Every structure is written in structure tokens, then in C-alpha cells.
């Protein structure tokens, strides 16, 4: 039986009261949900504003070589509320006395080998130390030196710094100089500040607590303290063809089942996103992450560079940091401790680490360095565009 509530005439008929009430309610609901969603987005954005401003993603969808600029280190320190350190008056006075008595250096073992005879001059050493080490570590001379005898090796900090200089130059020569790059791209040089960023004890367990506070325990402390120090990564060495597979996950017929490897890959990639402040497209073709090229044939150098840097990270973790004992219980040196080195350690949200320096003087290769790597880690072959 048909039950027509009412008959409506006319070309544009009106709603009855009940229909109007329903439509009004739906309109109010729609507006309410829209407003709630907008407010939610605004609240979350404001809440995360500080994080995004300092560490956030700056999408660089087009790899523009001219766009990869190093930030000014002093500006970076200021943005982190770190006041660049100056040499203390006592140290400056002591240096004056020392330099007057010793115009030529005594007991300099590293800089002269890697940077040349120029650093047999005390004033040259002082210039280098005050420019790079004081600012880089945030410490005055007395942190490492006996101000009465700058050449003395009595402080463990000085011995540690010497070993770190060797590590820095060796890593520069082996990994940074060999990075796959397009013609004309600048190679920056490592300095103390590359890792220390103005703080002597910079990489310690406090970082893990900070990360967990920011991202939650269930988030695994991601992504600042992401650790690459798993067995698979540290054990991945180039095969006979020079190829190495740190994180390959895209399946073929032989890929073992499970998504854990993919999750491991994605955690590492998310860490890299945050550490360098870039989106995935900075290194990858988004349609097929395995590819080194865009569909138009443009070669994605950053992917090859990132892979190369993973080799450096592996080298640092396996060969160098275990030889540099922590100076206190809160420092981190070995892979089995709380925080192992990762991309964020140096990059701090930028493509070029803020602490790196523009190439100033050539670094010599040293046949028998004071500190030698524990094992041989060959440089993997990079997949480069065919000429």
C-alpha cells in the first residue's frame, strides 16, 4: 500500500518540516566534523611546530646540486642555543708564553702527516686548533692540554683527540673522497664539528632518553637514536663483484618470506629522512625504490651516495669507535652500547652536516697511520650511470 505523506506541487517543490530537520542536522554534522578535523590538524601542527622547524622534512623532490648547500655552522649552533666557545683568557695567556718559547711545534704527530709541514709551526697549529677544535668541541685548550706544557700527553682527552684526528683523516681519505658524485659537486671535509657539533660529550645515552620522550617507547626511540649496529648490517661486506646488500628488500623468486626485513629497511629509511631532512624522492624514484634512475633516465646520485655512506658508517662502527674508549660511563663507543653512530649523528637534519668544512687544504694519504682499522672493509662498487 502506498502511503504518500503529502502531495507537493510546483516546479521546485519544498521539503516538509521533517525532511528539512534531517537535512539541517546532516549539514550541522558535516560542518562540525570539518571544523573538528581542521582544529585537530592545527593543534597537531602547533604541537609539533618546534620539532618541525628544527628537524622537519624539507621536501627536496628535485635533486638540485646547487640546492645542496651547507648551512653556516655558527648559525646552526645559535639555532640550537649553543654559544660558540672561545679560548679562555688563561689559555690564551698560556699560549702566548708557550709560543714565545716554542715557535716550532713539539710532539705534533698527526696534523703534520696529513696536512703537511706547515703545521710544524706553533702559530699554524694554534690557528687550526682555535678555529676548528675549540668551536667544534665547545672546549678551551685546557680540556686536553697542560697549559704549562702544551706538548705533554698527560691528559687522556689529548690522547683520545689524537686518535680521533687519525680516524677523521682516514675516514675522509677512504670514504668521503671516494663518494660517487657528479662532476663538479663539492666534497666537504670532515672536522671535529662534523660529529661533535659544538659539544664535547655529544653522543651519549641521554639522547636515547630524549628520543624516547619524543617518539614514545613503542616507537623504539625512532628516529634520532636509530641504530645500524645490527649483525646483518655490520656483517654485510662486498662480494667478489664489489656489490654489497645492506638493506635490499624488494622481492624476487628467492626472497625469504616475512616483512621484518622490509620493516628494518623502512625504519632505516625513515631515520635517513629525518637525519638529512629530505623526503624519499631525494634519493629514490618513488615509483620503484630500487631504481637508481628516474623514468627519464636522470641518475639519482644521492641513492648511490647514501649507500656509500652506509659503508662509512659500518667502518666507523666496526673499526674505529671500538678503539676510542669512552671517557665516562655515559659516553658511547661500542656497537653494543646504548646508541651507535647513525646518520643523524653528523647530519642533524641537513643534507651536508653542519659541522663539515669547505675543502681548504689537501689531505695526504698516510701509509702507516697511528691508529689502524681493526679489519679490512673494502669500498663497495657503486652503481653508476653508463657513460
Amino acid at each position, binding site marked *: 500500500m502506498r502511503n504518500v505523506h503529502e502531495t507537493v506541487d510546483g516546479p521546485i517543490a519544498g521539503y516538509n518540516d521533517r525532511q528539512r530537520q*534531517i537535512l539541517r*542536522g546532516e549539514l*550541522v554534522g558535516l560542518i562540525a566534523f570539518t571544523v573538528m578535523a581542521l582544529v585537530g590538524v592545527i593543534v597537531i601542527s602547533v604541537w609539533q611546530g618546534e620539532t618541525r622547524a628544527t628537524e622537519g622534512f624539507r621536501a627536496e623532490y628535485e635533486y638540485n646540486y646547487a640546492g645542496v648547500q651547507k648551512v653556516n655552522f655558527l648559525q646552526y649552533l645559535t639555532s640550537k642555543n649553543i654559544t660558540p666557545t672561545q679560548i679562555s683568557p688563561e689559555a690564551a695567556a698560556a699560549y702566548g708564553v708557550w709560543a714565545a718559547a716554542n715557535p716550532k711545534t713539539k710532539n705534533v704527530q698527526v696534523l703534520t702527516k696529513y696536512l703537511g709541514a706547515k703545521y710544524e709551526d706553533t702559530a699554524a697549529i694554534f690557528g687550526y686548533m682555535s678555529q676548528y677544535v675549540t668551536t667544534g668541541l665547545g672546549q678551551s685548550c685546557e680540556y686536553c692540554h697542560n697549559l704549562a706544557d702544551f706538548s705533554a700527553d698527560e691528559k687522556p682527552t689529548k690522547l683520545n683527540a689524537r686518535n680521533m684526528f687519525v680516524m677523521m683523516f682516514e675516514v675522509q681519505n677512504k670514504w668521503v673522497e671516494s663518494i660517487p658524485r657528479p662532476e663538479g659537486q663539492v666534497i666537504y671535509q670532515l672536522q671535529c664539528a662534523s660529529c661533535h657539533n659544538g659539544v664535547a660529550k655529544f653522543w651519549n645515552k641521554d639522547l636515547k632518553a630524549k628520543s624516547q620522550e619524543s617518539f614514545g617507547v613503542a616507537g623504539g626511540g625512532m628516529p634520532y637514536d636509530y641504530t645500524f649496529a645490527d649483525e646483518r648490517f655490520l656483517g654485510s661486506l662486498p662480494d667478489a663483484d664489489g656489490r654489497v646488500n645492506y638493506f635490499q628488500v*624488494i622481492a624476487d623468486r628467492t626472497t625469504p618470506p616475512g*616483512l621484518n626485513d*622490509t620493516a628494518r629497511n623502512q625504519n632505516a629509511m625513515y631515520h635517513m629522512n629525518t637525519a638529512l631532512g629530505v623526503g624519499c624522492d631525494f634519493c629514490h624514484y618513488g615509483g620503484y625504490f630500487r631504481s637508481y634512475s628516474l623514468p627519464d633516465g636522470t641518475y639519482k646520485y644521492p641513492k648511490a651516495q647514501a649507500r656509500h655512506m652506509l659503508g662509512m658508517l659500518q667502518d666507523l662502527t666496526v673499526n674505529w669507535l671500538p678503539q676510542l674508549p669512552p671517557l665516562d660511563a655515559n659516553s658511547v663507543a661500542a656497537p653494543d652500547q646504548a646508541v651507535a653512530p647513525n646518520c643523524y649523528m653528523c647530519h642533524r637534519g641537513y643534507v651536508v652536516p653542519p659541522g663539515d668544512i669547505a675543502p681548504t687544504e689537501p689531505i695526504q694519504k698516510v701509509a702507516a697511520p697511528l691508529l689502524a682499522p681493526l679489519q679490512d672493509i673494502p669500498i663497495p662498487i657503486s652503481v653508476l650511470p653508463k657513460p
Partner: protein
Amino acid sequence: MEAEALYPEGIERRAKKSFHIKALQGFGDTQIGPIYLGIWGLLAIGSFAITVLMIFIGYGLQVGWNPIRFMREFAVLGVEPPAPSYGLQFAPLAQGGFWQIATLFLTLTLVFWTIRIWSRATANGVRPLLPIAFGAALFLFSAIYIIHPISMGSWNEAPGHGLRAQLVWANNFSIKYGNFYYNPFHMVSIFGLLGSTVLLAMHGATILATVQYQSHRELDEIEDSTEGTHRAQLIWRWIMGFNATPHSIHVWALGLATLAAVAGGIGVITSGPAEPNWYLWACRAGITPGGIAACVPLP
């Protein structure tokens, strides 16, 4: 206002009195009750309770039973399946066992719920299209949580139980199998998803626009169409040259909506055994940007 006064049609066979909540009138004008429990409903609820219990125990362990952390980190908490090394074996509770129990009972819940819908449809004297449509969703669930992991030999291929875990699985699954957007079954599934939603929007707007001519009385209109339906059909013939009928629009909607789930399930099941890398499949099919030339050499 009494529901009977509003909906006096004899076609609605209600066993008991239903209620209206004034505040909900604007949100669909729904009737409340009566609800039928029955043995299948009871089994579904009990089974779902065990699922929720397992998941919440897993969450509790992750946050050290701290309610503040539970609230704060709820969105990222997840009960994950066992590691690949366990294959299809049972895992210790904290290493995937909770997930296995939760998934087992979640599957049972959905099966019980499907049977419940079927039994209510039968009791109500309607054709069992509702349980069949729900079965499409059940198939997609089974493809993701049961069939694909078993065919690959590892529960680790399935998603974890958690808000973020679902997103992470979708991402990882797509990455591992070479970009899921190039999976042709995924393409069809998205067609069904978007097609059914646009159809629903067109249908809803059309009926609301012609409600003053009684087109919302769809069941009557199917048997004996009147002015509301005529105007609704005419406007679509004017706009796009053809129209649906009050009957066929619902067939299309049901078909496209179930297609989304069924095609999606097939896409998941074929990922791995049939095609491990959908990007390479798309390359061979010549549908990737740049054509075949962009695929060679790989990587």
C-alpha cells in the same frame, strides 16, 4: 514520535518496539533496537572479547602496564606477528603468540558474524545478499591474514594488530612486492572502491534531491515508479545520457563494493607466488612511466 507513526509500512517486520533518540535524528534518523543476540552473536562477541583481550595484553606489556603511556602511545602500539624464523609454527606469547591467538579469534569472530547475518537474513525472509557482501570483506581479511601468509610460509607476512601496524604493513607489503599500485588487481580494487563511493554519492544526492517527490520510498518505487523516480532518472539522462533504475542502482553499488574487496584479496594472494615484483610486471606490460626503456637496466 513513535516509530510506527513515522514508518507505518507493513513491509518492515519488527519483532519488538524500536526507539528514536532525538539527538540522533539529524545523523541519519536511525531507529534503535530491537537487537537480536542468538548463539552466533554470542559466539562472535565472546570470540571478539578474547581477541581484544589478547591485543590489550600485548599493548599492556609494551607500555609496562602504565595507563598514561598506554593512552599517549595508543596510536603506535601494535601486537606484531612472529618473526620469520617461526614460519607457520606457534610462537611464544610475547614473540608473536599473542598475535596468533588474537588473529585466530578475530577470524572466528568474522566467521561467526557472517553466519549471524545469514541466520538473521533467513529469519527475516530476505535473500542472503548481506552475508554474501560481508563475505567479500571476510575474503579480503582472510587473504591478508591467513591465505597469503600460509602460501608464503610465514605469519610474518601478515599485519600486526594496531593502528600504526596496519599502515606499516600496507607500506611494507607494497615495498616488498615492488610497488602495489602496479598490481592490476589493486587497480581493479581501487576502481571498485572509488566507483562504489561515487555511485553512493550520486545515489544519495539524487534521492535527497527528489525526496519531495517521494523518491526516497525506494522499495515502492521499484515496483511502481512515480514522479520522484522519473525526475531522478531524467536528470541523469540529461547529464550523462543514461540512468539507473531504483533496482539497478543497488545492484551496481553492491557489485562495485564487493569487487573492491574481492579484487584486493586476489591481489594480495597473487603477490609473491604468482608475481613477486609488480613494478617489473608493469614494466613487462609496458605501463610504467617511460615504457620498457625506463625499466632496463634494473636496478
